[in-house]
């Protein structure tokens, strides 16, 4: 029994954790964008893909993986800023802006996905993991890269939380989310804050893309495949809640991971989706609805 725990479940748990941190990073971006901007970013998955594709190209040019981790978010930030400023803010003043921004970001997603196909082709690219080899952990062998993912991801998540809740910038962002008019009258450049927040959110998605590329490989529809999982996490955790994104991210990836022991992988997505639907039906605010509630 103990052996089963060790040799069968533990690997799944650890694998789930390593995927989980990347999923959480992506969900964090999504939930922050919703919490502050009230925008459902249907193109979020495409920025995840963007991160992966850009890192693949950079690495092909000889740039190290580690440098990519830094460069990709830096490259995505101005793109996100531009998109928010030039596109999203154009439809913001309409009464039905929720649907319009949804449609808009959906359109952007469409464009991006096809762009990836054009630029990089439809075939999957699998970059090699920057850390090779395996180590023993709790008596089982794990690829080092996965162990690294867990650790690095956890640090990143902690950093995001710290930035939002412990820094002045984070306070400004939260203030702008809480009361736009008041913040504006206090001299906070609300529009710029919005654009930066959006940029920050998609940069996180891109980062997740870089991190998961060696595991899931890179192909044009990877964004769309992943977005349901990201939205499920955000919804189960509560739109706008960081704590929710973390908890739900861990829960759902563990669910996916452990369930793959019992059911064919085809059914793991429907399973996660069913959890999301159940949460939406019975507790629509999710586990911790609202950014104001941390």
């Amino acid at each position, binding site marked *: 029994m103990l052996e089963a725990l060790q040799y069968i479940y533990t690997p799944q748990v650890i694998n789930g954790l390593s995927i989980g941190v990347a999923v959480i990073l992506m969900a964090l971006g999504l939930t922050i964008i919703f919490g502050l901007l009230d925008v*459902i970013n249907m193109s979020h998955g495409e920025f995840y893909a963007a991160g992966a594709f850009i890192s693949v190209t950079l690495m092909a040019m000889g740039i190290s993986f580690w440098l990519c981790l830094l460069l990709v978010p830096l490259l995505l930030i101005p793109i996100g800023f531009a998109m928010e400023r030039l*596109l999203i803010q*154009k*439809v913001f003043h*309409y009464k039905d802006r*929720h*649907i*319009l921004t*949804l*449609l*808009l970001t*959906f*359109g*952007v*997603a*469409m*464009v991006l*996905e*096809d*762009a990836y*196909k*054009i630029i990089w082709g439809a075939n999957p690219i699998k970059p090699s993991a920057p850390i090779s080899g395996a180590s023993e952990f709790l008596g089982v062998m794990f690829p080092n890269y996965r162990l690294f993912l867990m650790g690095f991801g956890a640090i990143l998540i902690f950093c995001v939380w710290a930035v939002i809740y412990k820094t002045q910038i984070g306070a400004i962002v939260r203030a702008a989310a809480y009361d736009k008019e008041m913040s504006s009258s206090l001299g906070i450049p609300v529009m710029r804050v919005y654009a930066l927040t959006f940029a920050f959110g998609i940069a996180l998605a891109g980062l997740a893309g870089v991190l998961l590329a060696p595991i899931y490989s890179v192909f044009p529809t990877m964004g*769309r495949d992943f977005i*349901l999982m990201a*939205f*499920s996490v955000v*919804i189960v955790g509560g*739109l706008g809640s960081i704590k929710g994104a973390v908890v739900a991210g861990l829960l759902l990836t563990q669910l996916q991971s452990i369930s793959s022991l019992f059911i064919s992988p*085809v059914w793991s*997505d*429907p399973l996660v*989706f069913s959890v*999301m*639907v159940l949460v*939406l*039906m019975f507790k*629509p605010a999710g586990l911790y609805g609202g950014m104001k509630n941390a």
Partner: protein
Amino acid sequence: MLNTKARAIRLVELVLLGSAAALFIVGTYLGDTFFLRLATESLIFGGLALSVDLLLGVVGLLSLGQALYFGFGAYLSALILKELASSFALAILIVTIASAILGWVASFIALRSKGVYFALITFGLAQVAAKVVYNTRSLGASDGMMGVPILQIWTPFGLIDTSHPGIFFLICLLTISILYGILKYFLSTPTGSLWLAIQSNENRLAYIGYKSKGPKQVAFILAAVVAAVSGALYPMLRGFVSPELMFFSVSGNAVVTVVLGGVGTLIGPILGSVLLTSFKSVIGTWTSHHHIVIGLIFVAIVISAPKGLIGLIVTRMNKVDAKKEEGKHE
């Protein structure tokens, strides 16, 4: 001002009907197959777009998964035609009933939520269904099902062969027109008013005596049936069905079509479908990357003309009216 919108809709209806008649006559006379089939396909996907518009433009619910019912109708129709009987009426009848039941069941899941959540639930439902179908051996898995027989449709004029592109075009035109007519009828009833009221201010509805759930459910089921019946026509045209019919791109394209034509106008989606299908066909001769062009057009429309083509027509009509008023006063 509302009169203008009604006039614009009437105008587009007439133009489309006229074009259809012209196409049929000219096409049949010249023995054309390509354009008639293209037009038929645009009608079929126009029906799907109709169902999206009913939910989005009238009730205010964005469904990102109508392809679920479209594909359901297509697969069911193919199965009936292959295994049961090669009968148009039977296929349509069974699809209507089955999709109404499916819509009714799905409404209990989807209607628990609104706005963004509704969009995500419908998105997810379609993704899950598509994945299930994709992996189901008995439905042909990723290859789908082929070999749907050519229909012989009974009419008072004798048996008609649907392999005749002109005739089948007319049949589809008739079917989609009936669906359109049904939706327009509902819009002209108090139920239609309740739908518009829900879109405008759902909260107030209870205080004038109605739970919003009832009318929403009616719309949801109607949308499912419209999408499914449209889908049922697909295997009759192409002779096969595949899981791609349930993929998100189909739902997504339908939404683009609706926004392009004009949300909430019902005829707009049909117009949008005609234009988009033609457009795809034209672009398709150069490159298979029509998505990026369509996506760019879509983004442009959402930003600069969110009321779509019919909205542009209405604006134009208003300007012309204003000029006429000025002219009168001189």
